[in-house]
């Protein structure tokens, strides 16, 4: 019976991706070998990444855009409709003339963006290093 358009009775993209990942990893990988096995493992992992993107991707992208707009000193409304890629292009071009302090500010913004994105692709990747290794 219809629930009048409620979306709560339909699995979300995140839930479906989690289920896909599990199916691939636990039911398909164990019964195949060789290059195909590796490929399916990659597929399962991709589903996990997409699941995380579905859950927090918008939030991460919003923060990234805000940080870029702040760094590029653009009023929010004017540049708000620019694609993130365009903002990155602008930043890229601005680096050619940047002085030391400008480069340091750019580094800080890019580092935070990279850290958040890397955590979606590989959770735990940006955790503090476990120990020092003397050369």
């Amino acid at each position, binding site marked *: 019976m219809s629930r009048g358009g409620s979306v709560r009775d339909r699995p979300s993209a995140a839930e479906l991706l989690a289920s896909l990942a599990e199916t691939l990893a636990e039911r398909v990988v164990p019964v195949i070998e*060789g*290059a195909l096995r590796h*490929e399916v493992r*990659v*597929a399962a*992992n*991709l589903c996990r*990444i997409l699941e995380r993107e579905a859950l927090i991707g918008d939030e991460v992208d919003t923060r990234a855009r805000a940080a870029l707009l702040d760094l590029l000193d653009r009023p929010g409304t004017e540049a708000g409709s620019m694609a993130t*890629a365009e903002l*990155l*292009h602008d*930043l*890229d071009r601005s*680096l050619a003339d940047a002085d*030391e302090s400008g*480069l*340091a500010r*750019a*580094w800080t913004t*890019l*580092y935070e963006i*990279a*850290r958040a*994105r*890397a955590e*979606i*692709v*590989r959770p735990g*990747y*940006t955790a503090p*290093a*476990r*120990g*020092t*290794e*003397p*050369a």
Partner: protein
Amino acid sequence: MTGAEPVCAAVEAAFAHEGTVVSASVAGVASVGAHRSTVFLDLDGDLGPVQVAAQIQPADRVGTEHSLVHEAAVLTAVRAHGVLAPEVLLATDDPAAAGAPLLVTRRVHGLAVPRRILRAVQADRDLRSRLTDQLAQQLALVHSLPVDGLPPSLARPSRAPADAFTDELTETLAQLDVPLPAVRLALRWLRRSPPAETARTLVHGDFRNGNIIVDPDGGRGLVTVLDWELAHVGDPMNDLAWLCLRTWRFGEDDHPVGGLGSIKRLRRAYESAGGGWREEAFRWWTVARTAWWTLGLARQGRAFRDGLTSSLIMAASGLRVAELEYDLLTLIRPDVAVASGADRMPEAMGET
């Protein structure tokens, strides 16, 4: 095996062209890539029973430094000095011989998949230390070979290797036309303080966990170094930095050398074997090769988006750019960059 049977015919034809009669049957497929495919074959006939790896390549690489005949020449040259490179049984660029460029080497048995090598090492501490030493010793040997005796087709830069490399990165970034400001920042870092020039040596170019074969039994350890396609004359620290890049640790950050061992041990073994370790150059090439691989993965992702490949692996590479950008930015943290010339290994390097 789809696509593998024509390789049998090509191999038989190529040997016949040289007056050697063999029969070939497929034993397995090692890998299929855009630039070459590798198939395992069982041969019999004039050579007796022999297991081989056969690489077949599209014809547009003939005569270039990517040619299989050139690579065979490199393999033969380094083997003559005792380097653990595959033994060449046949190499041809001649379409009359096999229809496609072909390189046949004696197959070496052992573990080639990095995660399997890591598991073997985790179960055997002696293997861990032996393998680290062997990797260092092989590189020291490679870097000691007289450059004059190497194949003339080997790429020899006319300028300082670091400068040539930075220019290559700049060009690649321009051609990619994807905004990667992290790489742009790295290019500035690289241009600011290139390593002091040093004697140029043979450089493998792709020496890493993923291009080695390891026999975990009976104490052997490293048995072969594969994939000499990127070999060139340049800065030897390039090889050491690439071997230790974070991306080749497969999650084993506690063992920075390919997930296998410590840099301290690698360095000690390298120097004991006559290698000259230059710390500043190691840092520089770590940044340079991290930027290079960031671009490499971005290109793979781009090829997928442009419809040049439908490979899932290539698509996934596009996502992994995020990991490499993070590594790159960590390496060029401004407070570290300012303290250049220091001998210490900065914590930020993830070598940690």
